[in-house]
């Protein structure tokens, strides 16, 4: 059963086409990762689905409600965890959830029980009555996750849920997300810069570039589609064309001094490949990852992208344009 149905969804800010017609169906209970370079249109897409940004054209249904025609019902059905922290730091953890419960019309008699349940789920019961400004980054994130799920949304949107957290906290945050999703059968749509995490967490991945979805599949299928292993060779002058002509080589990509060769059965053919390259400094062989898929499709390495400044230029323009509408 599909919970999100998007048909040719598009958004134009003035002359800039931030999202150029996206078609996407996401089924109930799925964890879906939306990946893309900065400015690809991720935030704009999620913004439209959360009814924060009005689409220029196309349509989107969430839990049966049209995002343009019934924004209030859609809002009731979705939970959002923003990239930047949005907790009320003058309030305690519990008070933040109480405010949220009131805003989402959770009946008074259920409020207390639901809040306690969520606090327990994210292990924040003993700190619930402290002001959130005293929380660590990881605790804030957890409280935001609890808040996002408090009104039992059908879909939870997570924009970079682990950004700025240390690796250990990141791993724990994903554990919480998984736990919560299993419990409530929530559909999750997330964006992240951490490819390993996307690969491990997501049932399906959509790679978005320049406002269009350019690949849509399970992470495993995407990696398999790359065709074999990757051999990275450091050498001053690799013969790119000769390497590309080899029958078992599916891709050759140069990045500075390093050439990355994607090939089938690398151990078998490694000697021949190396014999073609003069002055080899070092060789490294590895299994491809989602990051390699990303580089191949977008021509960019997501690890070199920074998300700390709160989205790319399209998102920034989006914010400025939105004021006028």
């Amino acid at each position: 059963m599909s919970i999100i149905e998007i048909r040719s969804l598009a958004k134009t800010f003035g002359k800039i086409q931030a999202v150029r017609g996206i078609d996407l169906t996401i089924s109930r209970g799925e964890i879906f990762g939306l990946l893309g370079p900065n400015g690809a249109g991720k935030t704009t897409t999620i913004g439209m689905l959360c009814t924060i940004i009005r689409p220029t054209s196309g349509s989107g249904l969430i839990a049966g409600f049209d995002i343009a025609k019934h924004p209030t019902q859609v809002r009731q059905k979705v939970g959002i965890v923003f990239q930047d922290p949005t907790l009320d730091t003058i309030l305690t953890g519990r008070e933040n959830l109480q405010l949220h419960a009131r805003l989402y019309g959770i009946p008074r008699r259920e409020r207390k029980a639901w809040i306690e349940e969520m606090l327990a789920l994210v292990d924040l019961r003993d700190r619930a009555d402290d002001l959130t400004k005293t929380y660590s980054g990881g605790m804030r994130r957890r409280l935001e996750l609890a808040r996002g799920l408090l009104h039992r949304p059908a879909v939870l949107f997570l924009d970079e849920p682990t950004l700025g957290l240390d690796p250990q906290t990141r791993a724990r945050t994903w554990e919480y997300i998984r736990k919560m999703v299993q419990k409530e059968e929530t559909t999750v749509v997330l964006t992240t810069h951490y490819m390993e995490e996307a690969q491990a967490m997501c049932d399906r991945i959509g790679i978005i570039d320049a406002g269009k979805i350019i690949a849509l599949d399970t992470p495993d299928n995407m990696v398999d589609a790359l065709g074999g292993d990757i051999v990275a060779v450091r050498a001053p002058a690799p013969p790119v064309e000769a390497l590309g002509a080899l029958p078992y080589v599916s891709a050759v990509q140069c990045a500075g001094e390093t050439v990355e060769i994607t090939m089938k059965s690398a151990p078998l053919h490694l000697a021949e490949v190396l014999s073609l390259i003069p002055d080899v400094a070092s060789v490294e062989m590895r299994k491809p990852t989602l990051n390699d898929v990303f580089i191949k499709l977008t021509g960019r390495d997501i690890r070199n992208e920074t998300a700390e400044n709160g989205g790319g230029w399209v998102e920034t323009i989006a914010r400025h344009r939105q004021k006028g509408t």
Partner: protein
Amino acid sequence: MRTAILFRELLGISAVWWREFKVFWREKSRIVSSIVQPLMWLFLFGSGIGASLSVSDVNYRDYIYPGILSMSVIFGSIFFGLYIIWDRKLDVLKAVLVAPVSRISIFFGKVLGGCTDVLLQVVILFIFSFLFPSVDPRGIPLALLFLLVTSVALVSLGLALGSLLESLEGFQVISAFLVFPLFFLSGALFPVDERLPAWLQKLVIVNPLTYTVDGVRGALLGLHDYPISLDLGVITLFALVMIATGSVLFSRMK
């Protein structure tokens, strides 16, 4: 269906109101300074000038009591509204703005929150009214009504400006070029009559807060330049215009 939507919106308004009250109550130092500051005006400034001056046979300190009450409301209300600039910077509002509650309801929740804060301060200042012999306590309810309507108007004005402004620098500009002139030209500290220079008189007449101060002073001291009904009419009209402007700008705010 209709009543369900109305109920949801009312719940939304009360949620925002509840939050503002929590925040107000938590910041005790702010409450204390907002009470102490007007008392300093009354007892340090008022007593000082009052030593050599009285207006219409009323001691100057008593004379400015209604004006200082108005001052508390003017500063408290506008700055409460403008505070959303800060909320937006810290992204505190973001989570509220994506809730299934209309912007108008969030706006009204904020207005109610601001009025509650400001009027609680005013009520505390009323407790001190026994120290001002010329003040007639029977006028307090009417004075409170004036101050409530004024507070609604000015919180709305603050929210309207806060919706437009992006940076905290705007805060200073508004303070210098709007709040202080509104206060000085309201007659809070001096009588507004034909003795004033003509240009000053004109500015005073177009300042809606002149009618607040006149109404409050009329209620508490029996001294007023305009009919009380005119005062109330002007300030109510001003409040309605500000609510309309504020709710439109707040709804468009990004």
